[in-house]
């Protein structure tokens, strides 16, 4: 709560600063040149490799433009505070890395530079559509995507065989998954993981999207208690009551032990799960497609680079973001970080890595969470209702309605 209040305070100050800064939203201004500072983060544990990567990317920009680029690697810890403090003091970077729930918060108070005026003639068609959803706020583009991830189900092949199913023919719909879950339960396995104490992005939201619903729109229209939302609440409730998900699912932060112990049919995972499984080599696994009920959907984040509105070198900053996210630099960046490129043409880096290639093919189905300035604030409110439902205190409909009411209150503030 204290953290949220502090961020709110910073955002308010940011709004004041943005109000005092030059308005550059009317068009692309200035010549490309001078010096810019870029704040990125350590994406892997290998600082040396990343340094080489950034050198290569900076060089590709400096070869084309007479400009100097300073890349500064900022730790992930307290990144919001650091960025907002520096921007509020008008002393921040010219380009920085952002994630989907940050972008609308910053853009909504005018802290980000709109990039549309700088994109004339730039190849935008190659970007994965779902990646651009994350970088757009109220029909304006505030960032260019560099990476994506996707959360989908990883199945334990031994368990699939134990329940008499075929690993080559994995469930694609809720109905098919339910059939497998029943068999798994009969054989003493959990069907999948559900970490009710964690982010809603990895629990409730994907089911809502798969049921054809949504949480809240950019225009603050609350949708969580619509038909799709209630169906998702009901499906999760059913999984819990039937014992398809573990008993600790109400508050669990992780359930890796059950998965690693071979007691679970499938676990929701991403590229990190893949790296972990491959490193350990203990479980023989296959990756399944994101499930669908009315719509095939999954959670997947999008990493982007954005330009603050109070940069004193907007043209160079915007040009650098364009260069950084072009097809070649997406390859360079994602080869090192092992994320999925946000451009279709750059996905060829995984041609020799079938699992990563498979994950990359699913990014088209991803959604980045709730794109709304209140996206972070509403999560604990929804979580509380979801947990109350799993505890048996309220019905799925009541939980969805109560969550909707809480969201209404938050977005109307």
């Amino acid at each position, binding site marked *: 709560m*204290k953290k949220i209040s502090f961020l709110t305070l910073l955002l308010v100050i940011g709004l004041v600063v943005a109000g005092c800064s030059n308005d550059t939203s009317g068009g692309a201004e200035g010549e490309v040149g001078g010096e810019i*500072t870029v704040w990125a983060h350590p994406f892997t*544990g290998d600082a040396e490799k990343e340094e080489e990567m950034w050198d290569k990317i900076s060089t590709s920009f400096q070869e084309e433009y007479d400009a100097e680029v300073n890349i*500064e690697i900022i730790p992930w810890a*307290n990144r919001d505070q*650091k960025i907002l*403090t520096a921007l509020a003091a008008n002393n921040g970077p010219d380009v920085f890395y952002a994630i989907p729930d940050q972008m609308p918060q910053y853009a909504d108070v005018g802290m980000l530079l709109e990039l549309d005026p700088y994109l004339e003639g730039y190849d935008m068609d190659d970007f994965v559509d779902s990646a651009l959803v994350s970088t757009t706020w109220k029909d304006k583009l505030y960032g260019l995507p560099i990476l994506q991830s996707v959360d989908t189900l990883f199945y334990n092949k031994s368990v699939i065989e134990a329940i008499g199913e075929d690993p080559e023919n994995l469930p694609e719909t809720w109905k098919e998954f339910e059939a497998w879950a029943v068999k798994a339960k009969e054989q003493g396995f959990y069907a999948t993981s559900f970490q009710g104490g964690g982010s809603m992005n990895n629990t409730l939201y994907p089911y809502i999207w798969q049921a054809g619903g949504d949480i809240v729109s950019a225009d603050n229209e609350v949708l969580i208690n619509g038909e799709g939302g209630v169906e998702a609440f009901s499906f999760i409730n059913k999984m819990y009551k039937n014992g398809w998900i573990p008993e600790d699912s109400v508050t669990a932060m992780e359930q890796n032990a059950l998965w690693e112990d071979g007691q679970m049919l499938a676990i929701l995972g991403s590229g*990190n799960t893949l790296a*972990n499984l491959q490193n350990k080599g203990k479980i023989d696994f296959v990756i399944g497609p994101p499930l669908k009920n009315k719509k095939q959907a999954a959670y997947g984040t999008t990493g982007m680079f954005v330009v603050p509105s109070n940069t004193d070198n907007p043209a160079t900053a915007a040009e650098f973001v364009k260069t950084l996210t072009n097809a070649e630099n997406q390859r360079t960046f994602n080869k090192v970080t092992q994320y999925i490129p946000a451009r279709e043409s750059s996905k060829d880096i995984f041609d020799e890595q079938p699992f990563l290639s498979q994950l990359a093919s699913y990014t088209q189905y991803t959604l980045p969470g709730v794109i709304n300035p209140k996206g972070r604030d509403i999560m604990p409110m929804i979580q509380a209702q979801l947990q109350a439902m799993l505890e048996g205190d309220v019905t799925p409909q009541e939980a969805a309605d109560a969550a909707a009411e809480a969201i209404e209150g938050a977005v109307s503030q």
Partner: protein
Amino acid sequence: MKKFFTYILLFILTFSFLLPFLIMVLGSFKEVEYVLLDPFFWIPNDPSIANYTYIFRDGIFLRWILNSVIITIIPVFSQMFLCAVLGYIFAKKKFPGREAIFWTFMAVIMIPQQLLIIPKYIMFAQFGWINTYWALIVPELWGIMGVFLIRQYLQGIPNDFEEAAYIDGANDIQIFFKIILPLSIPVVATVGTFSFISNWNDLFQPLIYMTEEKMFPVTVGLASLLGKEGNFGVEMTGSTLSFIPTFLIFLFFQRYFTEGIQMSGLK
């Protein structure tokens, strides 16, 4: 028999307190990126110094150590001296508004650090102190908690010492250096230890004020080495290296540390 059970209990307690340190030190010799299911995964079957080699690979870690030493040692000595002077003044000198001034200073502690960070950042940016040692040294030159500790301690020392020195013709400065300071060594050492620990371990302020890698202290440097998913081996190695100076300081000053805490009434 009773003694035996007491020892067993003490052994269990000691072991449970030491276990995290054991995991930290042994884990630093293990090349493992992820925390694994096996609860004893941190025991290195094949000990390796790869994590240490990685951390020391290009000398930047030594620079981070140097930065930490600079932003820690200067405030430590400065706090020990200035807090002793101010503690002496607030404990023994009588002047109008003494209590009001002291408790106003104390009230400042109630303001969360996070609320002051933006005004401080703006001020330091105007001074040109961002990415310099000044931003981390100047605000730490003295601290009201140190003044409070020393004041409490000195209030317990009879005024007779001072009065006797006055009769012998000593002035205030002589009394401070020859009578008060030697008597205050335990509490001054405690203030120094507190200052050392808080400055050495501080992540938040350096993280906000420093953006250039070469200016990072150890805390921020280590954080910058970690990818989004972390790296168990590197984290344990960094923690071990970062822990050593704090441990040594505590080892050398523990007598003063406990004495100072007891005598200043902060039990």
